[in-house]
């Protein structure tokens, strides 16, 4: 099986979006966690921000990351003709 240039481009775009979203995930998790003490001096919706992020904020970011990935990739599939067609 030979891959066409378009196929390669699809995979490259997949890798890019994966890397970008992974970066978002990394910041929301480890950078946020590392600086939680410092973030706590900021108040957000009545919460110390560091606590808020770990209890809720980062979780919301995770849900959005996955939702965006599903939406973007399903669109990319169609654009590059590698989608599976409609379910019957």
């Amino acid at each position, binding site marked *: 099986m030979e891959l066409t240039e378009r196929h390669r481009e699809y995979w490259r775009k997949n890798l890019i979006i994966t890397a970008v979203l992974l970066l978002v995930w990394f910041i929301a998790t480890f950078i946020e966690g590392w600086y939680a003490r410092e973030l706590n001096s900021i108040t957000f919706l009545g*919460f110390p921000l560091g606590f808020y992020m770990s209890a809720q904020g980062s979780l919301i970011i995770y849900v959005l990351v996955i939702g965006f990935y599903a939406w973007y990739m399903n669109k990319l599939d169609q654009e590059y003709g590698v989608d599976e067609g409609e379910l019957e």
Partner: protein
Amino acid sequence: MSQAITHSAFFSQLKKYYLIYAGGFISFVLALAVAEQMGLSRQWIGYCFLFATIGLYAMIGIMSRTVDATEYYVAGRRVPAFFNGMATGADWMSAASFIGMAGTLYLSGFDGLAFVMGWTGGYCLVALFLAPYLRKFGQFTIPDFLGARYGGNIARSIGIFAAILCSFTYVVAQIYGVGIITSKFTGLEFGVGVFVGLGGILVCSFLGGMRAVTWTQVAQYIILIIAYLTPVVWLGVKHTGIPVPQLAYGPVLQKVSDLEKKITADPTEKEVRVLAKAAAAEAAAAPKDLAKATAARRATLEAELAKAKASNAPDYVVKSIENALNAWPTDPGKAGVFFAARKGLAANANPPRPHAQPFPGKDEAAQDIARRNFLGIVFCMMFGTAALPHILMRYYTTPNVRQARQSVFWSLFFIFLLYFTAPCLAVLAKYDVYSHLVGSKFSELPAWAAAWRVVDPALLTITDLNFDGIVQLAEIVLGGDIIVLATPEIAGLPYVVSGLVAAGGLAAALSTADGLLLTIANALSHDLYYKMIDPNASTARRVTVSKILLVVVALTAAWVTSFKPGNILFLVGAAFSLAASSFFPALVMGIFWKRANKWGAIVGMLAGLGVCWYYMCVTYPFLRDLFGITAPIASYQWFGMNAISAGVFGLPIGLLTIFVVSLLTPAPDKETQDLVEHVRYPNLAGDTLKTEAA
């Protein structure tokens, strides 16, 4: 659920069924509430919930019975993204999440959030690295992928071993939870409770495999989420005035922080903290000579009484000491129970830890280690999530890659609903304890505290240490599980809601146990028996073997559980670290790096698993005793990390080993490289490979 109907018709049919089901369940709860008002006893409410829900799961199991392999192993690959999300949610959230999580947050404040983050953020890794590709590969188990990608039985065998190791550790924790809940709410014995629960698990997975488990898990999710949210919303309205307490508990957290400061500075509290330390030390030393300690305690109380009378202390002080003296047993055996309950006071020797403050520690170095361990737990829970076979397996059941991606979204969404509520519940409950329980008179305790104190001293013990007849914070010893179990009563809801919470906890434990048992049985029947021992076995025979193994594994797990192995949180954490170290590197590199080969994967999985296991053996007290290691823990620790985060070392070493060994050995053949291309594209023109198993 016939084969012939279209996907969209199937979806709307499911929606209709489950809406009717949810409505029916709510009516059932309301009917019981009315019955309670008319005088139905608490025990009967417990029985109604227990038998109605288990009966319901059994009915779904019977309706979904099957001997077809695709139906049995992957529910016919027809589960829509939305419903697979709910099923994954139930599969994922165990007794530890449902009952234990809020309690852990109550007791450890910010540091407990490591689990909240870890158990949700891991789904980002599932979505980005695994779910869509595994769905395209489309066979039955995770060792299937290892076998196909890394050429043969060695990689598959390691996969089988690792899958059984992590799933079995985890399932023991679940069955333990089932036993606790059934015994607590029906008065059945722990052992009987385990077997009633086991019946519920088996009737479902035994008859219909993944198909029955999937549809039962959806039903279980609906019960568990209703059960979790109802009392929290109620408590939230009480304290914040808003029915979405998750958004509005910031000010309550602020009040809790103020109360913490007040309690820390309060002179009476300071005095009681000193007494708590002494009482805990006395209790810890008591077992050495119980008879002597019992007599000594009596003498102390008598001396206190004489002193109080001589100094004309207020009446209630004299009365409290007299009560304590009358209650103190002469029989050393009974006194042992009293002493055991007082051991928990050791934690009260220190002022309350500020709830929202991250990484407490006495100096900079200790705080740094606390921060490192926090992030270490987050890391292991996340990568473990993305490597636990019972979760990954669920993404084989969607109709296609597109739906697999959407399904991860729904999974996390449904899981998120519970996890972002738990920190809120912990804060609301803490506020109630600090503002109402603390400072109340022993003769007029809030109803819930008075009740639970009698039910189970391990969950709630309050001792009047300074005999002033008033509750100080340092006199309260809480078991974490009480937070969820007692919330309905704290919120002032009728008993039927407590029954509902128990049914929710049971649903959480049963659904996870179902998924785990199925994973173990499939690893043995499909991977070991069919793929390695008898490849000519007929479908019916394979499914039969799987069913027999299911019963054997379930009974073995129940047998191990009957020994009541300690520390559930460590068991669960260990399962995650082991999964992260063994599976994650091999699975992800198999998809993203074509050059990864058989030997790389084999050595890498063993190295990851080995390092992780070694680290646990030298740093976890139970395992250290087992292997007779006596040198201090600190001399073995790397960067001060605790045993639960052993995956922090296992995973990178696994990745690195796969990389190095693969480069040192020949590249995989063309066929394997084609397989990698095949899984990367949902639909590839000119691709002749067919991996999907039917």
